[in-house]
């Protein structure tokens, strides 16, 4: 069949956003219905694509894609419209589709006065994030990567609490600064490749061979020897992605923003957007700069570990429950980053799995926190207690989300965290041990959060609240269900990702690898473990 499904996925929300403009702003129900329908339709397409993508990919090569489309875009500089879906992007794209459905559903009545704007921006964001996930061409990728900020900016600047202005500007300026460094790197790579190969291209698959010099760069006049151009270029990418993930110490935009943003934005912002940094690390930084990655992996993994522990400590010291969740997100994103920098199959696979899992978990946690705030009018941990008796259903959902959030074995995040930590262990045991400390701390603050809100005798603010409405339950149910389901059956994710991850890992190791224990083969698999 010749339907360009990926383009359809990209354009569907865009078309819906355009269609929204002709609906009068008073037709609230229609606006909402259209938004939900559009996101759901996109989700249906994506999920079908992902579900049916088993088997061998269409195109072979160092990176292979199950679905891809390629057209000329800017021939003068060799930029193409090259989109592709492979095992790594597939699940994240599925998550993308899901969180936007969630966001569309969650658009609350409170922002009805500008519902139209909200829905339009939400749909635009979906197009952009899907574009980031699908782009194979670096310029196209950058276009979506930066373009994503536009609807996000309007969303964050328009909706949320009174502190949103500062937080939004901080976020945007921060990300733009990082992205621009990446742009320099992209261009350096582009020209180096152009000189080396004689043809201009921004296509990832073309640029894989590198072309950037591996001789250390010497600053003229002062005669200081610095990194190689390849390493500098990698650092440019790393800056952009580390800010987006974010890694400590680039995280300061995160808590403020998460605190101020409304939940309908948070579900896809915290649930997906911050993961795009991690995804892009895997897709671009690892494959394009294997030498540099191998040089810097120690530092980056250390930063990831610092993020894990620092985020946990910060979560431990907060009173605002939304900030606790925000910092927990920082900590968990540290796990994802750690998995990436292990540069082995386990770590990266774990990171991909965890991206999906954490997206589900954080979305649920933010929804729950929002419900609590709505019902009680406070987010102060000290003013909240004893909600279990008042809100047993919320208690149950929150419990599952909490457990998933703290990496409980049997929950979805365990599969990811286990493989990440295994990968980290293969990189160096110390990383795994420190990450383990992070797990213990996570247990502490998550339980304290959950118990603090749910247990103990009720406080004045929590005396007279009622349980969640069935509709809210219906929103949370699939999330919670997925947490359990993916905990019990994480296999399908791994099945889809493994080929692409293996290719990526091979690329990351494909060149002169530096020191580090070699665990590339984990030895024979004992027959006892297999049927």
């Amino acid at each position, binding site marked *: 069949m010749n339907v360009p499904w990926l383009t359809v996925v990209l354009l569907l929300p865009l078309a819906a956003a355009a269609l929204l403009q002709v609906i009068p702003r008073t037709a609230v129900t229609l606006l909402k219905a259209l938004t939900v329908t559009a996101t759901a339709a996109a989700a249906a397409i994506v999920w079908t694509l992902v579900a049916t993508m088993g088997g061998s990919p269409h195109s072979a090569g160092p990176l292979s894609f199950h679905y891809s489309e390629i057209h000329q875009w800017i021939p003068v500089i060799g930029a193409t419209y090259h989109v592709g879906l492979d095992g790594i992007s597939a699940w994240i794209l599925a998550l993308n589709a899901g969180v936007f459905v969630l966001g569309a559903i969650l658009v609350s009545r409170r922002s009805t006065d500008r519902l139209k704007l909200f829905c339009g921006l939400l749909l635009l964001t979906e197009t952009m994030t899907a574009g980031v996930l699908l782009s194979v061409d670096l310029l196209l990728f950058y276009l979506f990567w930066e373009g994503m900020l536009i609807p996000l900016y309007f969303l964050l600047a328009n909706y949320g609490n009174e502190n949103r202005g500062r937080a939004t500007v901080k976020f945007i300026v*921060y990300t733009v600064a990082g992205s621009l460094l990446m742009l320099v790197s992209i261009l350096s790579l582009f020209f180096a490749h152009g000189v080396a190969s004689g043809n201009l291209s921004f296509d990832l698959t073309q640029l894989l061979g590198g072309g950037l010099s591996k001789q250390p760069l010497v600053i003229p006049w002062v005669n200081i020897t610095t990194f190689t151009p390849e390493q500098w270029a990698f650092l440019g990418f790393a800056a952009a992605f580390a800010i987006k993930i974010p890694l400590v*110490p680039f995280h*300061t935009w995160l808590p403020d923003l998460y605190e101020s943003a409304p939940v309908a934005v948070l579900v896809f912002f915290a649930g997906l957007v911050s993961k795009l940094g991690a995804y892009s690390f895997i897709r671009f930084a690892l494959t394009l700069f294997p030498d540099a990655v191998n040089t810097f992996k120690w530092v980056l993994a250390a930063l990831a570990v610092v993020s894990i522990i*620092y985020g946990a*400590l*910060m979560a*431990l*010291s907060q009173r605002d429950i939304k900030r606790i969740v925000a910092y927990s997100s920082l900590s968990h994103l540290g796990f994802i980053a750690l998995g990436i920098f292990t540069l*082995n*199959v*386990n770590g990266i*696979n774990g990171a991909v799995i965890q991206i999906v899992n954490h997206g589900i978990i954080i979305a649920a946690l933010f929804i729950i926190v929002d419900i609590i705030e709505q019902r009680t009018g406070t987010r102060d941990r000290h003013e909240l207690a*004893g909600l*279990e*008796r008042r809100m047993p259903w919320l208690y*149950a959902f929150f419990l599952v989300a909490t457990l998933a959030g*703290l990496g409980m*074995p*049997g929950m979805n995040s*365990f599969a990811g965290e*286990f*493989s990440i*930590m*295994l990968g980290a*262990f*293969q990189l160096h*045991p110390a990383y*795994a*041990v420190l990450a*383990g400390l992070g*797990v*213990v*701390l996570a*247990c*502490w603050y998550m*339980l*304290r959060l959950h*118990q603090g809100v*749910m*247990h*103990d*005798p009720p406080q004045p603010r929590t005396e007279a609240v009622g349980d969640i409405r069935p509709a809210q339950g219906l929103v949370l149910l699939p999330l919670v269900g997925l947490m359990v389901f993916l905990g*019990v059956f*994480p*296999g399908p994710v*791994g099945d889809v*990702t*493994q080929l692409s*991850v*293996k290719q990526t890992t091979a690329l990351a190791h494909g060149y002169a690898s530096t020191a580090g224990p070699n665990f*590339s083969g*984990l*030895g*024979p*698999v*004992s*027959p*006892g*473990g297999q*049927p």
Partner: protein
Amino acid sequence: MTTSTVAVLSGLILLLPLAGALLNALVGWRLSRRVVNAIGTGSILAAFLVACVMLAQVVGAPDGAKSASAHLWQWLDLGTGGLRVGVDVTLDPLSAVMLMVITGVGLLIHVYSVGYMEHDRGIARFFSYMNLFIFSMLVLVLAADLLILIIGWALVALSSYLLIGFWYERPSAVVAARKAFITQVAGDVALVIAAFLIVVHIGTLSMPGIFAAAPSFASGGLLITVVCSLLAIGAFAKSAQFPLHTWLPDAMEGPTPVSALIHAATMVTAGVYLIARFHPLFDRAPVAQGMVACVGIGTAVMAGVIALSQVDIKRVIAYSTMSQIGLMIFAVGIGAYSAGMFHLATHAVFKALLFMAAGNVIHALHDEQDIRLMGGLSTNLRRTELCFLSGTFALAGIPLFAGFFSKEGLLGFGLTNGPGAFPWVLYLVGVGINVLTGLYAFRLWATVFRGEPQTARVYAAREAPRVMLVPVAILALLSAFLGLILGVWSLVIHDNFLIGVFARFLSPVFTTPASGPLAVDLSTGTAILAGIVGTLGSLLGAGLAARIWLQRNPDPSAVTARLPRALPQLAYNKFYFDEIYDALLVRPLVALARAARRVVEPRFMNSGVQTVSDACSELGAWVRDYQTGLIRDYASYMIAAAGVFVVATLVLVSR
């Protein structure tokens, strides 16, 4: 015993409690109390029946085929070079024993709970958690993959957490639950890291695979020692062994059936099971084994001493549990796997019994737990007292009661096959523990049931309803006769009197080239002497206790009052472990977190961005200052720049 049988039976036994848990959790709040009770206990009854069938399967299997595995589904497969984990189950004698203990004791406790929780509103929640616990425990013991075992391991901790915090409006319960869970997670992490070491070294997490590849570890080498130490740490956390023991007494905040089921009979003994299960690895790590044995016996002594000083009825039993598990850990540490497992089984019976009997007392006194306010309950609670006494006898190791067989078996094994150059040192400590056990066991019985009633409430105490008494009675019978039956059976088949049948049953699991004899060989004089000395120790303890506390007004602190002040103080305060941990771990971490929030985040993390933004702003103000609005100023800038440019080009020309 075919793979498919195992798969079907395992699936069934796992699904039944799970279904019960889900049913009660989701719709329990709309069902009547009877239906909830029926679901809760019925699912366990069904599971117990399945367990029986499974036991029969194992027993009926021919020698050499007592163990079978089944692959249920692939959990995760990350391709070559990556993690591969299957949801596999194993049925072998060891897991069969555990299944029987879990479902059997579990069933009785569930029945008991029907009565005990009669007036509690959250009965559906309670049964849901209890069923979840049974499910988790079954996962743990059936798992044939280390990762699945870890999942079960953590699920068990979860159910324990839920049940400890069952009365969630009690702040102390909430804190205790969290404490228990965090400690467990610390153990989990150790286990996970052990799993990493194993998978990196061997390449698989499948337990049969690990055991098959165990010889690839250098015996006594650093790697295997570290792996086993980490496994042991995991076991210590679960089994409340030093230094991860502080959560167990606090866990008594949960309802009494919970204490009986989780914190006495099953969960806390999972550590013993783990070490026994991984004996092929431990056999190759003598240093780790020695560490395990020492920790076990040390904890046994420490907990015994503390038990003697406590005044809360459940805490006394909790410390006694800790002490007994210390003995089991000691047993598996010295390689007496069968003996350890046997003590596990008997202990499950009599300790559950003790807890439930104590529950009856608490129930009768309307939630009074302080033994100083009891006394003289034998008049009103005669049946309970009988049962309690049976448990006390078993605990103290009075000959022919269940505890006697298991305890003497493992102590004797320690003397004859123990580690190190002087196995008798540990044995003597064990005898000391026997004395201690006798002391605190009978102290409890005497102060609760004998003497004068200390409060008026005692007179109003009523015997528990039948639904609570029957399970207690069954357990009392078991603790009285289980050992005896097995012993006689052993004698009949000309085997070791103490644990012969049991050891034979488990032998397919524990027979490995590295391991020595499975049970104490009573044919030697040393062994017989050891048995006699040990028994005398137990009797001595019991006698001393009777002498001290069987007075008119039994004083719980009768012994401690005569000792120097410092020792009882130490013991009563549990050797200040909570305080030490608080000072060493909790407070520094909290301080660190606070410092992160107050200092690091604003001063250091934000400062970089802030500096840049301030600098830009300053620069902007500076530029703005030069934007005076005066034409002459503007012209002077232009002239200056033009002059500089001209000079610059001219200078560059001469370059």
